[in-house]
């Protein structure tokens, strides 16, 4: 098994093992979570496991991630997040204090996001069988009747907005883990974007798609959308929000920020005529200050993601198989 990178290999794993085994119409929505029919309403349901190393990093810890990640997945379904479960796998010898800090962070994050952690589970495994502490969270939310978000809504002409600068989380984790002392400490931007999404859904007439570009970065998430919706997404390189320290770190590490994991940002697809209004709403939130219009759905004949470069060149942003492997001969 070598499918960790969140690219094409991961997708192949999901498509060849999980989808066929568990096949049903809700799974096939192929979204961040499933939207389920209920009498008089619709339920959003999602789950995520968190295995980050290190457990603590500038800007947060595994506890924040575990709450914010699942809340954001619910938000991407257009749901109002309500309840979370939390399951812990703990390594023998984990300091109790560490666990307390993590749980404290979860409590605060849940409060901020307006959700309750209502059930849970704990297993302890032998020393060496896990990397300190793993957390799984599942979440339930309700989708208001007038909200319709999904791949089927993405269409030519849609504007693509990102709610904040990209790459911060992935670079923060990497540089902390590897002890790279860059001049500026890069912080993870992990956050639950509840207010951005609720204000957005209340403030603009129509939103077609919401996604959180976590593993595999912006590029992989956009490729999944392009593939699923059968559209061409064209980004403008100059409009991508990348903070200078993140840019500098990526340049040095040889990483493309478009393939670096994010936590506290969302991708939004909506009709171009609402883009200005949406940006205005998003930027009113502290987590949305760096929101940008980064591109458009430009065609509906070919699933691909393109990046327009400064000099009139257009780069194909492919879904990588896994790691960024050298290609230059």
């Amino acid at each position, binding site marked *: 098994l070598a499918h960790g990178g969140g690219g094409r290999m991961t997708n192949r794993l999901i498509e060849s093992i999980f989808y066929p085994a568990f096949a049903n119409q809700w799974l096939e929505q192929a979204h961040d979570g499933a939207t389920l029919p209920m009498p008089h309403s619709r339920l959003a349901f999602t789950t995520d496991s968190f295995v980050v190393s290190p457990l603590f990093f500038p800007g947060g810890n595994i506890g924040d991630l575990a709450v914010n990640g699942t809340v954001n997945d619910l938000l991407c379904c257009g749901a109002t997040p309500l309840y979370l479960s939390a399951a812990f796998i703990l390594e023998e010898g984990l300091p109790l204090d560490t666990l307390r800090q993590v749980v404290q962070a979860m409590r605060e994050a849940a409060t901020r996001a307006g959700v309750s952690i209502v059930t849970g589970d704990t297993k302890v495994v032998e020393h060496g069988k896990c990397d300190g502490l793993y957390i799984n969270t599942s979440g339930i939310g309700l989708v208001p009747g007038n909200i319709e978000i999904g791949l089927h809504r993405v269409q030519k002409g849609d504007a693509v907005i990102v709610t904040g600068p990209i790459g911060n989380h992935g670079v923060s984790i990497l540089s902390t883990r590897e*002890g790279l002392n860059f001049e500026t400490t890069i912080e993870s931007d992990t956050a639950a974007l509840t207010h951005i999404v609720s204000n957005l859904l209340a403030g603009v007439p129509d939103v077609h798609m919401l996604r959180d570009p976590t593993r595999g970065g912006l590029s992989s998430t956009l490729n999944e959308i392009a593939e699923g919706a059968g559209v061409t997404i064209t980004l403008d390189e100059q409009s991508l929000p990348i903070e200078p320290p993140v840019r500098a770190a990526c340049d040095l590490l040889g*990483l493309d920020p478009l393939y670096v994991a994010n936590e506290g940002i969302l991708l939004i697809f909506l009709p171009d005529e609402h883009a200005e209004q949406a940006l205005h709403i998003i930027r009113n939130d502290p987590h949305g200050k760096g929101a940008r219009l980064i591109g458009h759905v430009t065609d509906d004949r070919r699933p691909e993601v393109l990046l327009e470069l400064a000099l009139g060149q257009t780069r194909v942003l492919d879904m990588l198989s896994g790691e960024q492997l050298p290609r230059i001969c």
Partner: protein
Amino acid sequence: MNHYHIHVRGLVQGVGFRPCIYRLATEMGLHGYVENSNDGVLIVLQATDEEKEHFVQALPLVAPAVATIERIDVEECPANCTYDRFEIASSRSEGDEITRVSPDIAICPECLQDRRRQPHRKDYPFINCTHCGPRFTIIQALPYDRAVTTMSDFALCDTCRSEYADVTDRRFHAQPIACNRCGPAYTLCDSGGAREHDYRHIVSRIASVLTGGGVVALKSLGGYNLLCDADNEQAVTRLREVKGRYAKPLAVMYRDEATAAADLDLTDEERRALTSWRRPIVLSHERARHARWLNDGYHSLGVLLPYMAIHYDLFEAAPSLRRIVVTSGNRSGNPIVIADGEAHDLFDPQVDLVVSYNREIYNRVDDSVVCEYDGLCRPVRRARGYTPEPLHNLQSTEGIVAVGAEQVSSFAVGKHDDILLSQYVGELSRRGNLGFFEESFSHFARIFRFRPRCVVCDLHPDYAATVWGERYAAEHQLPLYRVQHHHAHAAAVMAEYDLAGEVLALCLDGTGYGDDCTIWGGELLRCSRSRYTRLSHQPYLPMPGGDVAAREPWRMAVSLLYSLYGESMPLPHDFVERIGADRIRLVCRMIARRINTPLSSGAGRLFDAVASLLGVADFNRYQAEAPQKLEQLAEGSAERLYPFDPDNPLDISWLVVAVVDELNRGIPRSEIAGAFHATYAAMWCAEVVRQAAQQKLSRVVLSGGVLQNKRLVDRLMNLLRQAGLQPYLPAVVPCNDAGIAVGQMAVAAAWLEERERKR
């Protein structure tokens, strides 16, 4: 009197071969006929045995320069009729068997004469004959006939029609035949939007713009070119801005051979290539250096001679112009522009004149580039004048699509036992080039009536060509095969030289994905077409940052010394000053912690490292800048060898220690560069000789992009020959990644045949 069937195979159609046969037979007083066949021409000859012998011997001598005769088969057959004259039989409707399409041919001397004496072709710029003119660029389908070329829009006038039908005329069956009355014509459009249709005015307008330091976009055979006076630095700077290409050398067209010879140290072989009908760009050595703005300070310059009538006319109209820059008309990273509308959109706002003509270019081709290695000019970029010449393969290639590599890309399609290699396409991570790839593939499929049976691609999972191939195979429900990069490099050379059995393969390359998930590139393989084993390889070096390490040679310099000395590595002071201690420290950390740091045995990376240590290039602004500058630095240096371990010749630590030691002792860097090249060649030769003895093999194929280093190749070839081995350096297939598709196809063909045999 006997009857003979003489079957001539090769490129003998569309190049005026049949009229030559007709003339020969008529001169010898022989009867019979000649007709086009699927893969050549068939001559039916009524003659005595002696006459027939004479005739067959004379064939290659009378054949047009462009024709290539691959095989002549003679067979006696029953004489059940008598012929009373010699005839050119009209072409029968052909099947989809033909794979011979002529490349485009530079205007011939006879046509240049005809423009002066034929009233209806007075000064006519699109004059052509069976020996010259556009071919591949205008062909849309086979069999080759005017109706399926972009000349179909132009109805023949009576004069042209009668020439076309006259067996004794040089334009007999010349499909693009044209004249002032009936053929294509130029149109000029200036920056004010004014148009001009008179050819002589157009030429003098271009000439005066060029002389005045302006930039012109001119529609050439395979696409638009950008032109300016090569000796005017400001003009060249402006042209570079239009193109968005700031450092990379530009090609220069000289008014004639003599003017070129005054500037360049042309060898006989370079002269032959320069004046050949293919008219490639020839990389040659400058006698004196004065135009840095053309070639980024190299001692070599890419030069070519006029190949269209308008080029000759331009130089005639501008006697003060010695040479002009001729480069593909595009924005860097996009394919050469062929559509008139696109040309106007792109160039109108930026250049002084846009000159087009009203014949459509169907197949896009750039200019080809050749360079002399080991006494022979070999293609570095294979396009105009070469594409789509097929390569013969030992096994059937029918229905194989080979998608090639990534950066210097091309694809190939298989017909019967031919490999049809596409023109050079360019870096596929650019959408424009991927579009070119797809367009050209669909054209090849149409022209050669190609029916795909399987797809073959590189092992690299993320090459755009691999992804394209996977999708294509899935859509057409075809099997997909993956061939290791260097096995493909080696197999390409085996295909070119018809080598069967097993050989040694020395692949000196930049980057290729290995079958063990590391990056390969300095490899000695033992291989057949279907199988390989990796005998030995250059020691692995960390590539801190992956691809970025190939763009930033300084990282490889750090990597090289860190691998040998650790934290206390003796980096030259000027190096540390240029790069900065902080960056060096972080890169060391990346190596130590293996952060985005794959391992590479690539030869190119070692050259990068040494180039940066010697201070010639810390960053590559274009592909292979550092190794090219390292090679140049070595020029004229003494042949000196550093010691190495004869039992383990690939142990580069000796070499690195010697380089670092001499650097610190202040030995001239050019001498170090020279010794590095000589030692590197000697090390590999020692390794090859050692393995050749162990493996009991003596044939060595050489391939990979690093072999574009002349200094290295010439030494390697000599050393290998002196050691009694038989080295094979490709002369038709580029040794860089543009040849990968050929190798992929040869390997796939061998696999298919093995499977067939097992059944």
